């Protein structure tokens, strides 16, 4: 039999075993060669060799590991040759070194096997003095079973990670870790621990020191150079592709914000207290916070560190913003001056600036207006406000075109300064400006109405000779219109002041108190501004309503200018009448009669004209108001029902329809 076998096998089995062992290390042996046939590559025996097919199959099966090894090794070599470079990065390095370590174990095994293979394979009858540790192909199969599984896994990983790097690579590896086989779990755990550690180190230094130690751009946070005031909004961003799946988006957000806060404190606030806060956090979490102390599987520890650091850094940042930069005071100042919260100041400013603003825009001097602003600050309770805050309040003249009046270009401006311009960005201030202009317009209308009232108060005019039938009725008509307008303007202003500004402010105040970090604060402020804009009908969707509102204002202002003219005439007539009543006592009756008649005629003409104008204004006004009231309920996005309910409290308007 053995002769026959010898006949059959051209090659001795021990030679094959040695060859297979070489193949396992990716080396071509005497018989076993790496070949590529029809696109399928692998180790195989040459066809020319006379061997039983069982041996061939066995060899082929054993050489699978060699093929896998070649692949893994190839990847490692390729990557290592590129180190250090952008393409591999530190995570790639860690991956390679972890793979290398695994391979070292493998080499060790191969060495042992090699030594075994030196022992001769026993043959029948030669059992005396034989070493038990010889290697046959079949024994090799048992030895290599487990390493093959591991090698296969490595090959899969290598295939999966070939083009990835950094966080994306960690994520890809992590996806492969979800396996129920304890062997695989062990292996992956070991590997991930190594691979994650550079990433975790980046997280650590970002969270505790605000440093982006990421020269190969592997981290899921990316920084970009920007201007100081937009550091918070645009300075850094999260790169979702680099975010491994085991870091949840909320945790990532928190990591992101903490480092950003540190940078913000450092760059914008020129603050160094954060270091103490970070050290505090690190001390609180304890052991695993030293450099390179974090690994995969300690995601809890990482999370604890991040949460702790975030808490402290955020609270420190809020502290700085509130205490050092007095965010709340600035908000309040903006509300008082730009949103017309300080009534006496606004009233006084309107009083003294009003005449000036009626001039054409190009003749107005900004310096003079600044002086007037200063005067109105001194004259009102605003003078008791902090000088630092008052200094930030300035007059701003907007660009004007032909025919613009001062009213169109005047506005106030508030400069909160560094670092609060992160909150009060140019865009935000522009929106404030828009609100201010709107409120200022409303105030102006209200002011105009009050001025008319002053001139047309009945007790200014009675006891006059011209107080005749016609006049009484026309005056009454005037009063009615005035009342109607006043009702509208008062209620609308009440709505804006109390339902919009105060309510939004109260809400904002609560949110400001409860906000834990700058993002919260920003979004609270954004909501505050948004709610004011929407509710006071400045939003996109209420543009038609706003247009009709401005129409109403237009009518009211026209009424004012007409009324001014009428009453000027009336006072003129009145004073003339008075002047003429003196000569009456000196009994110059004739002339008086004549003059009286002329005056009556004049007055009659005036009243006639006035009546016509009044009718026109009343008609325009009620038209505009109708439109406005009809449009009110259409504004689904704002709760205007209450305003409607106030305007139409007695159901006068809804009945009139």
């Amino acid at each position, binding site marked *: *039999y053995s002769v*026959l*076998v010898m006949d*059959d096998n051209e090659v001795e089995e021990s030679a094959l075993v040695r060859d297979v062992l070489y193949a396992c290390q990716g080396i071509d042996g005497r018989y076993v060669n790496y070949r590529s046939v029809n696109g399928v590559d692998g180790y195989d025996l040459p*066809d020319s060799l*006379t*061997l*039983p*097919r*069982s041996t*061939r*199959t*066995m060899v082929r*099966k054993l050489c699978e590991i060699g093929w896998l090894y070649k692949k893994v090794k190839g990847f490692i070599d390729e990557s290592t040759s590129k180190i250090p470079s952008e393409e591999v990065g530190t995570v790639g390095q860690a991956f390679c070194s972890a793979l290398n370590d695994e391979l070292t174990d493998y080499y060790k095994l191969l060495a042992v096997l090699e030594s075994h293979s030196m022992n001769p*394979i*026993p*043959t*029948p*009858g*030669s*059992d005396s003095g034989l070493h*038990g540790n010889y290697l*046959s192909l*079949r*024994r090799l*199969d*048992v030895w290599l*079973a*487990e390493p093959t*599984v591991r090698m296969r896994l490595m090959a899969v990983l290598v295939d999966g990670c070939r083009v990835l790097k950094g966080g994306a690579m960690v994520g890809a590896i992590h996806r*492969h870790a*979800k*396996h*129920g*086989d*304890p*062997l*695989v779990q062990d292996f992956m755990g070991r590997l991930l621990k190594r691979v994650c550690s550079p990433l975790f180190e980046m997280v650590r230094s970002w969270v505790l020191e605000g440093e982006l130690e990421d020269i190969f751009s592997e981290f899921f946070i990316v920084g970009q150079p920007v201007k100081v005031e937009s550091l918070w909004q645009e300075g850094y961003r999260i790169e979702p592709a680099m975010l491994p799946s085991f870091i949840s988006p909320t945790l990532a957000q928190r990591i992101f914000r903490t480092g950003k806060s540190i940078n913000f404190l450092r760059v914008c606030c020129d603050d160094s207290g954060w270091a103490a806060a970070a050290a505090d956090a690190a001390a609180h979490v304890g052991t695993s916070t030293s450099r390179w102390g974090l690994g995969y599987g300690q995601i809890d520890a990482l999370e604890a560190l991040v949460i702790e650091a975030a808490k402290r850094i955020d609270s420190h940042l809020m502290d700085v913003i509130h205490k050092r930069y007095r965010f709340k005071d600035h908000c309040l100042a903006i509300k008082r001056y730009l949103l017309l919260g300080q009534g006496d100041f606004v009233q006084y400013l309107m009083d003294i600036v009003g005449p000036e603003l009626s001039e054409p825009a190009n003749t107005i001097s900004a310096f003079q207006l600044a002086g007037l602003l200063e005067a109105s600050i001194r004259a009102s309770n605003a003078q008791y406000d902090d000088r630092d805050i008052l200094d930030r309040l300035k007059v701003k003249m907007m660009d004007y075109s032909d025919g613009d009046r001062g009213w169109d270009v005047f506005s106030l401006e508030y400069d909160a300064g560094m670092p609060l311009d992160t909150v009060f960005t140019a865009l935000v201030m522009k929106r404030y400006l828009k609100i201010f202009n709107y409120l200022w317009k409303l105030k102006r209308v209200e002011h105009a109405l009050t001025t008319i009232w002053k001139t047309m108060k009945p007790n200014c005019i009675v006891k006059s000779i011209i107080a005749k039938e016609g006049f009484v009725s026309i005056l009454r008509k005037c009063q009615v219109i005035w009342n109607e307008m006043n009702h509208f303007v008062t209620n609308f202003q009440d709505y804006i002041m109390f339902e919009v500004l105060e309510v939004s402010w109260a809400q904002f105040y609560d949110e400001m108190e409860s906000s834990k970090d700058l993002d919260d604060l920003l979004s609270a402020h954004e909501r505050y501004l948004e709610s004011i804009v929407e509710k006071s009908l400045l939003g996109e969707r209420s543009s038609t309503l706003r247009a009709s509102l401005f129409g109403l204002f237009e009518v009211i202002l026209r009424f004012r200018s007409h009324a001014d003219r009428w009453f000027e005439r009336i006072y003129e007539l009145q004073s003339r009448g008075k002047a003429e009543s003196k000569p009456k006592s000196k009994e110059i009756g004739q002339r008086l009669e004549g003059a009286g008649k002329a005056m009556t005629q004049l007055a009659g003409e005036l009243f006639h004209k006035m009546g016509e104008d009044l009718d026109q204004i009343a008609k325009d006004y009620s038209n505009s108001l109708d439109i406005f009231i009809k449009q009110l309920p259409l504004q689904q996005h704002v709760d205007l*029902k*209450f305003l409607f*309910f106030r305007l139409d409290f007695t159901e006068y308007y809804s009945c009139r329809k």
Partner: protein
Amino acid sequence: KSSQMAQASKPLYQYDLSSRGNEKDIASFAVSVQEPFLIEDLLYALVGIEGRYISIKRIRGKDGYVVFQIDTSMDLALQELTSRIFPLCEGYVLVNHFVESRSHFKNGFVNHALAAAIRAFLLDYQAMVAQLEHQFRLGKLSSQGLWFFCQRMMSSMNALAVLVEKAITDNVSGSATLNLLESQVKAMAGDNAVRSLLERMTECASAAYFKILERWVYEGVIDDPYGEFFISENKSLQKESLTEDYDAKYWEHRYKLKDGVPSFLRSVSHTILTTGKYLNVMRECGHHVQVPVSENSKLTSFGPNHEYLERIKAAYDFASGELLTLIKNKYDLIGKLRSLKRYLLVDQGDFLVHFMDIAREELSKSPKEVSAEKLQSLLDLALRMTAAASDPCHEELTCCVEKVSLQKTLATLKDLPGPVSGGNDAAIEDPELAEPLNITGLETFSLSYKVQWPLSLVISRKALTKYQMIFRLLFHCKHVSRQLCTAWQLHQGFRACKILGTPISRSSILCRSMLKFIDSLLHYLTFEVLEPNWHMMHDRLLTAKSIDEVIEFHDLFLHKCLKECLLLMPQLLKKVEKLKALCLRYATSIQVLIPSMNMLPERDAKLATTARIKQSQLKEQQLKLALENTVISDSIMKFENEFNVELQSLVPILSRNNSQSEPYLTHLAQCILGIRADQ
């Protein structure tokens, strides 16, 4: 002859001709030479590799299934022996195929773990084969010896092959795999070695499953990338739906048991489900809780002593206790329920009376015209001006105006259990449910209450709707009662004059009996139904063990209240509504009629005091008055008759139900009908 057979069987080997060429015909050797050849081939065959004279034929369409064949020219006795060993080889190939294929990622944790366990077994097996080879190389292995050594593996491999075959045909994963293992263990219980092998497999496979289970039971997290766990999460159900949707299914369907619970967990599957659910509720509240796990209470130990059941129970107790304390203490469930009772069950009288005073005008409009904003501001006013202002919960109260009457709303809520569901009744009622034309805000007004998560678990939209039903009934009763009181006040204006024989006296008696009816009804509703039931619920809540129990008690309370408030008996409710409508009609007509006839008696009174002489004149006038008032008196008579008839018609209904063991109706009969019930 044998060479002929060899020729015939040749095509079988054709697919690997490359090495076939230089093999010699086995028949040409002596049996003693055939044997070592055969043994070597068999040793290869045992690890699934073809040899010189043994070939493998794959069965088409079935991966992993192979048939071993031996050269038919071999010695017949050897052939026979070999074919006995073939099942082992075939089993190996099949099992190995399973291990290779199930280690792929997509097959799930349980399959991975099972494959790993089987791989360990196969390694043992391969080691055995290597051992045999050693013997063979020493020339000590005969074919008989081979057969003997294989025996040890035979039954185990066979059992595994059976298992794997079933697993492959059913393509099981997750808990199905575990169940299969479990049933195989039971089926193989007779063979000790096989049973312990399968038990080991089960243990390894379930370890992976226990890891998923552990996270769910201890943290409330489903970490199940391959969908193996028996609890599924429906992310589309949002917790906000609880406060908006009447038919919200959040609590029941957010986490659900799937089919295929592993049989060893079947008895505790609900406990497991609720444990994780509770943990999740707490997490949604931003309250991070983890069941404290010590090293020795890890769930991974699966054993016959059912220790894991104890641990699951412990986790459940912890979670439910923690959640209950959270909801009771931090979110103040009892306080919220009390405040619901205060407002929606009309416990706090002064606020309601004040509100009815100021909102009367708005509420008497039709529901379409009522402005909810105005009512809301009036409600706020009423809340701030009365004792309710000191209640911290009063901010949560809002109001709403429904569009349809109470009866109709009840009919549309299909899932309310009660006699409504009887097909006959419903058919009769439908046409009658046509909307009363003059429905006002008074009938449709109702309070509402803002409920925050997680209290919305208990006070869901559904529960709140039930509260609102009761509120609307009470509110309307209260309204009727107030109207009758006004009528009664008008009657008091006549105290000074003689009213005997006038319609006034008749009317005042009617007014009183109506008042008695409505007040008795209110008394019944509040003191006989709501108060005792609420207190009962309150006491039971204090002893509740879990949030599910709390929900159950609360729902039970609401259901009982609805039932005892007659809201589930449309027949009775209709009668009561009719009576109320009658009372209301009477009250309004009296308020119109009495002022109109006020003039005469007043003058009479004056006359009577000033001039006694004009007695005759007075009598005359009184006669006239009586004549004028016949119209009024007629209408009052009509009211009286109608009222009495309706009231009497209640008697049979109440007494009929009485026999149907519904004792609360006896209370009602006593309250409303008073002595008449005793007669």
